[in-house]
Every structure is written in structure tokens, then in C-alpha cells.
């Protein structure tokens, strides 16, 4: 059985499933499981958000997820099960945008793998979000350029200036 599960969930057909993520990363030898769930928040930079549309370049996003899984394994060791799923399409406030789960023998590796994966998904994967505001306006949000570093070696946690108030999680 593969030790990672990588998925893009079209919201029109399905919602993300944290229970399935926990089940996938579970193993009798794994005492630590960490999970990150990103949800659509109702406010961004003072504007009332009604929802978010996620756009993906799906083949490359899935290729990136596979590279992220390999990178996590290099960081925390081979005893890792990793689940990465991201939503596509229009989501309402409160709906799940991303689910990451990591299972490892001990908690430290699980936390580290989970953190590495969510940061890499946010900063180095071809995914874009368009915020829809309650007032009827919509905007694509600013993001991280993929020109800045070779994607395969991009650091998942970096320190460039960011919108301090992402519209979710």
C-alpha cells in the first residue's frame, strides 16, 4: 500500500474528509498523528468574505504533492504516512480548503511533516484563490511567485513578506 495519498477534491463532486485522512495515516506502529485543516474564514483585511474559489493547475499540483511527500520523508525519515488533499472550485465560509495529515512513530516527526507539507502546499504549489466578498466584489489574492526558487528544492517555510491576514486558517 502506498504511504502517501495525494488528492484534489472538486467541490462540485465531494467535500474534503478529515476522518478519511486520519484513517489513511494510521498504523499500528505509529503513535503520533498530526493533522492540519484549513477552512474558509469570513473576514479578510476588514472585508466580509462570502466564499473562495480555488483554481489549480491540477497535473502539476499533484506532481508537487508527490515531491512534498518525498521531501517530508527526507526530513523526518521513511516511517511516515502522509495525506494531502486540497479543494478545487467554489467554497462557502466554513468549508474545508485543505486537509493534511501525517502519521509517524512519535509526535515530533508527525508535527514536523505536517507543518512542512502545509507550508509547501501554500507557497510552492500551483493553486490560486479568488475571494468573493459579501458586497459582490471578487479578487484574486496576492501570492508567492514560483520564479523565486527551483520548485523541486524550494524551502517550504520561508520568510518573505506575507499578507498577515489570510482569509482562512
Amino acid at each position: 500500500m502506498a504511504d502517501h495519498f495525494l488528492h484534489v477534491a472538486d467541490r462540485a463532486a465531494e467535500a474534503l474528509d478529515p476522518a478519511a485522512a486520519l484513517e489513511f495515516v494510521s498504523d499500528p506502529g505509529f503513535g503520533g498523528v498530526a493533522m492540519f485543516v484549513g477552512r474558509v474564514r469570513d473576514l479578510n483585511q476588514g472585508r466580509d468574505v462570502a466564499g473562495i474559489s480555488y483554481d489549480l493547475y491540477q497535473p502539476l499540483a499533484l506532481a508537487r504533492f508527490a515531491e512534498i511527500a518525498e521531501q517530508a520523508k527526507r526530513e523526518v525519515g521513511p516511517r511516515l504516512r502522509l495525506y494531502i488533499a486540497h479543494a478545487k472550485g467554489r467554497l462557502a465560509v466554513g468549508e474545508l480548503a485543505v486537509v493534511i495529515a501525517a502519521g509517524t512513530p512519535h509526535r515530533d516527526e508527525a508535527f514536523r511533516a505536517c507543518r512542512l507539507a502545509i507550508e509547501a502546499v501554500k507557497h510552492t504549489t500551483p493553486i490560486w484563490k479568488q475571494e468573493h466578498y459579501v458586497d459582490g466584489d471578487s479578487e484574486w489574492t496576492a501570492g508567492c511567485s514560483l520564479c523565486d526558487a527551483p520548485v523541486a528544492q524550494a524551502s517550504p517555510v520561508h520568510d518573505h513578506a506575507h499578507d498577515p491576514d489570510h482569509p482562512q486558517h
Partner: protein
Amino acid sequence: MDVELELFGTLRGLEPGDRLRVPVAGGTVADLRAALATHAAARWPRVTPGLLGSCAFATPAAVLRDGEPLPVDGRMAVLPPVSGG
């Protein structure tokens, strides 16, 4: 060669079907970048040179750097700065 580009994120809506074909004089991603800049200057008034400069070019398998050769099938995606999660 002609390169067929697929547009994503903030570039959606600029071309019918979010695709366009641009003639490229040269064989590298840098040549494609220059060709798209020419197209954008003429046709995409709301796209700034700064935004275009921060866009990456990719195949389904990888982001390609400016010095790399264009893929033989002539199909690429234009990726504006990303904001997943």
C-alpha cells in the same frame, strides 16, 4: 515556434477559453516570456509588467526556468504567484 499557453488564477478571463497561442522567436522559456510580454503590452492593459515578471511557466510535470528549452509539444501553463491553502 508557436506555443499554446493555458492561463490560471488572475490571468483567467483574459483570453477566450483561458488559452492563447503566441509565436516565439527562439527556443527558451526566456524567449516565450518576451513574446508574452509583447502580447500583454498590446492586449492586457490590466496586467502589469511586474505581475507578468512574477509569473512562472510550466509543463504538467515541472516549472521551467528562463534558460531552459521550450517543451517539444509547445504546450505550457502560465502560473501567476500562488496562494493555496
